[in-house]
């Protein structure tokens, strides 16, 4: 009888521990799925969820604060994702928060990353719709990476041919590095330049006051501007046929008048010429 009771106690302990372990396991799993905490719900509409699954984590500043509860396709370009978030994290998420889909690693699970939004905005509420941004697609990264590699290949091949040319002494740089005569010329040029710059410096020091020079240069520029303005005015007038020159250049009547004046003058002068020749032979003016 005593043995029977001991066996019953042993069996009771065995069953109790077994059930307790099951409860502990269920509690820990439930704790992970936010089952025993007060939570709130948010929804977000994504264009592409990149393989996100229910149960995936939701992160705020790298901390797991919730899980994906439900995923449903609402149209051909939009997928609605419902997430459950720990109420403790609610005060950090503002109305202008943005949810995006990231990855735990190159081969890891997908996660929803929440950008909490600006400090001044109101807190997000239960059942609010959160703004979303497009997930970074590994395929697009790989495509961009491929392009970069292609570019790098062409750049390196160009560099290779350049270095080859330099080594064989082709081009300015190549001759500079490889040709002794060129290098000496270059060195001489640099020495001359150095001298020149030294002299220029001395010259500048000799100038009493750089500011004065600058001011006078400024004035010169100002005057030049005025002169050019005047010039443009004059040319404008000229073009419009104003003034003597303008009329000379642009007015056809004046031109004709001038032409006839010149013809008259010419005729006049030729008449004068014959008169003078006649006068030379005239006895009246003998002796002049």
């Amino acid at each position, binding site marked *: 009888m005593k043995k029977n009771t001991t066996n019953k106690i*042993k069996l009771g302990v*065995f*069953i109790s521990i077994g059930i307790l372990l099951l409860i502990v*396991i269920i509690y820990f799993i439930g704790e992970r799925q936010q089952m025993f905490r007060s939570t709130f719900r948010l929804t977000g509409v994504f264009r592409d969820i990149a393989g996100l699954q229910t149960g995936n984590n939701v992160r705020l500043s790298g901390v797991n604060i919730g899980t994906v509860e439900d995923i449903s396709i609402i149209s051909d370009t939009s997928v609605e994702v419902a997430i459950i978030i720990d109420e403790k994290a609610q005060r950090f998420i503002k109305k202008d928060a943005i949810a995006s889909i990231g990855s735990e690693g190159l081969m890891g699970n997908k996660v929803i990353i929440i950008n909490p939004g600006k400090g001044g905005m109101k807190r997000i509420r239960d059942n609010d719709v959160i703004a979303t941004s497009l997930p970074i697609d590994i395929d697009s990264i790989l495509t961009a990476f491929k392009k970069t590699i292609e570019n790098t290949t062409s750049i390196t091949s160009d560099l290779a041919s350049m270095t080859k040319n330099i080594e064989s002494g082709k081009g300015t740089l190549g001759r500079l590095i490889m040709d002794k005569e060129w290098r000496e010329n270059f060195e001489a040029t640099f020495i001359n330049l150095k001298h020149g710059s030294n002299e220029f410096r001395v010259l500048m020091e000799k100038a009493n006051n750089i500011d004065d020079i600058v001011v006078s240069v400024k004035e010169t520029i100002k005057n030049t501007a005025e002169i050019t303005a005047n010039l443009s005015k004059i040319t404008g007038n000229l073009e419009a046929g104003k003034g003597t020159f303008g009329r000379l250049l642009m007015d056809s009547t004046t031109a004709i008048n001038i032409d006839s004046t010149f013809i008259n003058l010419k005729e006049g002068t030729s008449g004068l010429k014959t008169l003078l020749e006649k006068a030379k032979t005239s006895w009246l003016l003998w002796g002049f």
Partner: protein
Amino acid sequence: MGKTISNKSLSVKVEPGNPSKILADSVFKNFFIEVYSMTAFTFRFFKEVWKPPYEINEILKQSFLIGYKSLPLIAITGFIIGLVLTIQSRPTLAKFGAESWLPAMVAVSIIREIGPVITALIFAGKVGSGIGAELASMNVTEQIDAMQVSDTNPFKYLVVTRILSATLMLPILTIFADVVGLFGSYMGVNIKGNVSAHLYFSQVFQSVTFEDILPAIFKTLFFGFAIGLIGCYKGYNSNKGTEGVGKSANSAVVFGSLMVFVIDMIAVQITSLLQN
């Protein structure tokens, strides 16, 4: 048939028939007879289980023998499986640089599949053969007949109690095996690494979900039921003779283990169907 062959004077007149055909016929007949009697046995269990008296004391006694007494064996097996699985998986995961996934992977393997199935196989080996041999020897020594004469329902007292105990004890043993297996895995992780128990178990619970653990525990009810039922059936219907005891014990283990895998296959299909 044996008569026809042994009687040489009549063998000319009687058609001997195709021996292989006769053998196939008898195998088929035996198979279907077996299926029938097993189904009848199962129905009888479900009929008897609701009827009083409930034999609570006998159920508790059997639970103690089947459950509590199996714990050391199950715990050692679970520990070794957790340890070995971790050590074996490490090189493969290390190839991908994913050693940090070791706790998650091993935990899901143990809780979903290895824990329940290994526990059920050990259970079939220890308990299934035990029940088969016990009932067969009772049958041989005509104790079952004696019970019937003394107005005790032997089916109720011997079969129903054992099947119920096996059905209820296997899930509890599986939970123990899972927990001990996870501890074994924790030690396996720490043989070549340095992971704190807190980090290890937080990684474990991060990867395990209710969809992993609940169907796994639920299916062990069916494993336990099948092992208990087959053990009892084989023992209860054993041949009268000493070789019948060994045969019953043997076939209880073989058929019980096979049924564990068959049920596991069905369970995994149903689980994956429910998850999608």
